[in-house]
């Protein structure tokens, strides 16, 4: 039985601009008493998610609608376990497969097959499992002999095919 349980979760993302992040600023703050506007103590915080609660169980499908910056991706990242909520809790039973950035983890100097292996490993698969899936991935990507050459020779469309084939080969728990 797989499921996702979110209780009053909020995510606040701190934005450190170049100046607020530097050690000099921290050191200055120790030696100088006054605080200046946005340079003072706390960095700007983006409240990306505020007090979210939801329950999902086997068979549920959830669609997210919202304008740009509404927090859709942040919610997904939180569910995937990348962002831990700053308050509240997220409880996931089962295995999550996430697909955010299509070109992630590609190494352009490596061959298609090497990239499949690396991509699969990053997605949490064992090498043995990946080897079993390689024929399927190769067939789905329809790249044929191109899988033996480095990715820098690929066209944009070919890269998209390969990344889609890799990302969709993970078996999450349904």
């Amino acid at each position: 039985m797989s499921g996702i349980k979110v209780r009053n979760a909020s995510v606040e993302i701190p934005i450190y601009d170049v100046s607020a992040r530097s050690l000099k600023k921290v050191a200055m703050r120790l030696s100088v008493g006054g605080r200046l506007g946005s340079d003072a103590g706390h960095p700007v915080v983006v409240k990306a998610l505020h007090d979210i609660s939801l329950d999902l169980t086997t068979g549920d499908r959830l669609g997210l609608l919202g304008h740009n910056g509404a927090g859709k991706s942040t919610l997904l990242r939180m569910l995937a376990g990348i962002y831990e909520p700053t308050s509240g809790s997220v409880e996931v039973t089962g295995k999550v497969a996430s697909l955010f950035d299509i070109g992630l983890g590609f190494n352009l100097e490596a061959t298609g097959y090497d990239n499949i292996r690396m991509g699969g490993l990053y997605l949490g698969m064992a090498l043995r499992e990946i080897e079993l899936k390689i024929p399927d991935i190769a067939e789905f990507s329809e790249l044929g002999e191109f899988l033996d050459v480095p990715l820098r020779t690929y066209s944009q469309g070919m890269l998209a095919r390969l990344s889609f084939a890799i990302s969709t080969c993970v078996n999450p728990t349904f």
Partner: protein
Amino acid sequence: MNLQVARAWRDLANSLGSWQLWVYVGLQDVRLRYRRSAIGPFWITLSLAVTVVGVGIFYSGIFQSEVHIYLPYIAIGFIIWAYITELVVDGCLVFIHDGSYIRQLPAPLLTYLFKATWRAIIIFAHNFVIFIAVALWFRIWAGWAYLEALLGFVLLTLNGAWMALFLGTVSGRYRDVPPIVQSGVSVLFFLTPVLWERHAAKQYSTFVDLNPFYHMIEVVRAPLLGNAAPPLSWLVVSVMALVGWSFAFLFFARYRRRIAYWV
């Protein structure tokens, strides 16, 4: 805090569990850096070999030491120093470098530390060929002491790894740290007995004993050259590995959940 420590332990267990990931990707990292070059990763070895032979012959003249003693000494010294640099300086980047992965994939974070450490070990292995050649040339054979050197190497690596973990976490938040560490390490090179020997420091030898990097080098270098490392060095590296790891691990546990937001 207890919850954070428990999660950090789980991170550690999961990272060890996904050893295939960091072993494979670490190997690829080294291999891809030299893709399409004829001798591949041995370029690292070659450049260090030229330095060792050149400096070894020239400086043995300056310091008036015997080449057959001085050259092996700096050969292994340079190799270990390169390893420490790789661990500590590149260690600052363990999380920053793989930021795009950290922000996209829920892989346990210590995976990236293990990958960086493994990569440093691979490069060390390439460089170690130089010492083997030098040892063969000067007929150095340490016998059972090689086991001692191996133990020393494990302790050296453990120490380098906790430094990478601590510095990597801090660097995620403060981007000035990597350049500071880099210049710090290059200054340390001159203060650490790599080019010169401890006894050459004369009245400053206490100062050398206060340098943790001296001990980290010595537990590997001395046994390989057929000498025993001073008990003080073993004590320092063992205690430092234990204390350092406890500190770095707790520090990591405290800030682990923030790392994805920082990088």
